[in-house]
């Protein structure tokens, strides 16, 4: 995420678009990025540490962005994902 004190022109653009679409009450929008790194099996602690180093060196620019690394369960290989039911938002 862009740091709080850094202007986020993209977030401002989204903020400006919301009332035009009839969504009111939002006072600020900030736009960031999310990277999903997939690994096989249970990740060892050093893998998480490595992910933090990736975030620090390449995935984010610590001068203007903050990051956090978290572990989530994979939903499995893409081809085994359940099909979204027609008419609903996946």
């Amino acid at each position: 995420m862009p740091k709080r004190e850094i202007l986020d022109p993209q977030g401002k653009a989204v903020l400006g678009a919301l009332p035009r679409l009839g969504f009111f009450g939002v006072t600020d929008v900030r736009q960031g990025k999310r990277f999903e790194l997939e690994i096989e099996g249970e990740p060892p602690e050093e893998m998480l540490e490595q992910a933090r180093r990736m975030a620090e060196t390449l995935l984010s620019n610590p001068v203007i962005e903050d990051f956090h690394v978290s572990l989530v369960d994979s939903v499995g290989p893409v081809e085994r994902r359940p099909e979204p039911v027609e008419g609903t938002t996946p």
Partner: protein
Amino acid sequence: MRVGVVTFPGSLDDVDATRAVRIAGHESVALWHGDHDLRGVDAVILPGGFSYGDYLRCGAISRFAPVMTEVIDAAGRGMPVLGICNGFQILCESHLLPGALIRNDHRRFVCRDQRLRLDNTDTAWTSAYSPGAEITVVLKNGEGSYVADQPTLDRLEGEGRVVARYLDGNPNGSLHDIAGIANDEGNVVGLMPHPEHAVEDLCGPGADGLGFFTSLLESRVGAS
């Protein structure tokens, strides 16, 4: 001098930078992003463009190109390095220069002739200008807003490392109207506007940009 111009995938202004180098009386040397080789050059230019499509962040992937290992080493030994536009972004991502460049505050691409004031003419790339000189060169960027935290800005101002400042209004939201900065040795300079597009009277806003390239001749910062 032998001046290298690096071509990354997506560089646009390497040819104009090469031309500017030659017009300034230097020998130009084409450098390739994928080579661990500076081919014996005395100075390096990282040109403008959209290296790696600006994916991830502008300059973020180029910073890890093989040639950048050599550029960062050479810069540390005092070799003059000039980053223009995307090159400036690469220098910031490489931590050769402090701060970062983010999207223009007005969110539009800007392309115009831009007046600048040169506030530091002691660098390897600006010594041909007289202090406080006002010049007009091309400015064209989408992510040219210079940002840094307050201690960094204070240090840049206190040490006179703001090389160029925008005149006649701030075109992109850069803090302190900063158009270009130098490292503390003055051999590494990053500049958002494009002096290489202003080296001949025939095209562009004039030849005000040529001084960045002729400065190398009288530079006090020698290449190692």
